[in-house]
């Protein structure tokens, strides 16, 4: 039940951001610093989430089949593959490496 509470709060805050954009006076839009922070934070969060999901195992760093997934996704993106193909490449690499015996 606790997770439900944080989940619904995340939904409420997510909608609040969106609605806030429609309710604040347009003059605030001219503040380039706010939109710059929103942009750099988007980049930073996605980079961090990539690394955490590839390397973190609880509070330890691990080098396992997920590294292969990261590499495969990078190659797929370099080849301009669509998003779904990138995700499948990541899954395939991790599953394949595990079949070969690398955890």
């Amino acid at each position: 039940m606790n997770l439900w509470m944080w989940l619904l709060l995340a939904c409420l805050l997510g909608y609040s951001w969106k609605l806030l954009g429609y309710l604040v006076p347009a003059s605030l839009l001219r503040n380039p610093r706010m939109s710059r922070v929103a942009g750099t934070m988007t980049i930073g969060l996605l980079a961090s989430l990539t690394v955490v999901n590839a390397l973190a195992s609880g509070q330890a760093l691990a080098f396992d089949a997920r590294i292969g997934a990261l590499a495969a996704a990078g190659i797929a993106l370099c080849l301009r593959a669509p998003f779904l193909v990138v995700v499948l490449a990541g899954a395939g690499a991790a599953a394949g490496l595990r079949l070969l015996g690398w955890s």
Partner: protein
Amino acid sequence: MKLLQSPAVRVGLSISIATGLYGISFGALGVTSGLDFWQTMALSLLLFSGGSQFAFIGVVAGGGSGVAAMGAATLLGMRNGIYGMQLNALLQPRGWRKYAAAHVTIDESTATSTGQTDPAEQKRGFWTAGVGIFVLWNVFTAVGALSGAALGDPKQWGLDGAAVAAFLGLLWPRLKGREPAAIAVACALATILAVPFVPAGVPILIAAVVAATIGWFSHGRSDEGLEPDVDPYGGPHHHGRPEEAGK
């Protein structure tokens, strides 16, 4: 049927299909991250912003707390507020439409709308992409969640690798040029350094603080990282491939 002759409607529909389809990967990853079916559906129905949704389940899958998951999802949602301001100036929705428009204000609907020059087309593009993606994203989240639950051990299918790939796929289109790449590297390093010392989920929030500090004190483009990660109209660097959507 005249509606189908509108270029914005046609682009909106193709973006809807491309984006909606990978709701499958969100649904499957949601139920294997530890959420149940309805929690996964609630994220797609109520949070409805791909980056924030993947962030929430990414933190939970890594053993992070609910509050850390909420924090990461909420910080990632900030850019939707900026999109909202742009769209409000552009479309000027009135009454209940304002509240509905807010809910479907995401990367893809913003990109479809702002890519048009005629105000009527901007409106059509926004609503077609927004409502179309909302419907298909939720349908395919349900499909993914139902099939993900039947998969058994998610690691055997490489679903943890799929999550890694999904985040890199979301990040990639925003790394245009040297500066955003440097921000990404700095935040990745901060994350790696923090992992052994703080509870799971918190390293992501530390990276957010690093990124916000860089954004606050440095002087660069004010829309860095804010270009929606889709280019429905195929600019000079993309070659008209709307399926290249990332959400």
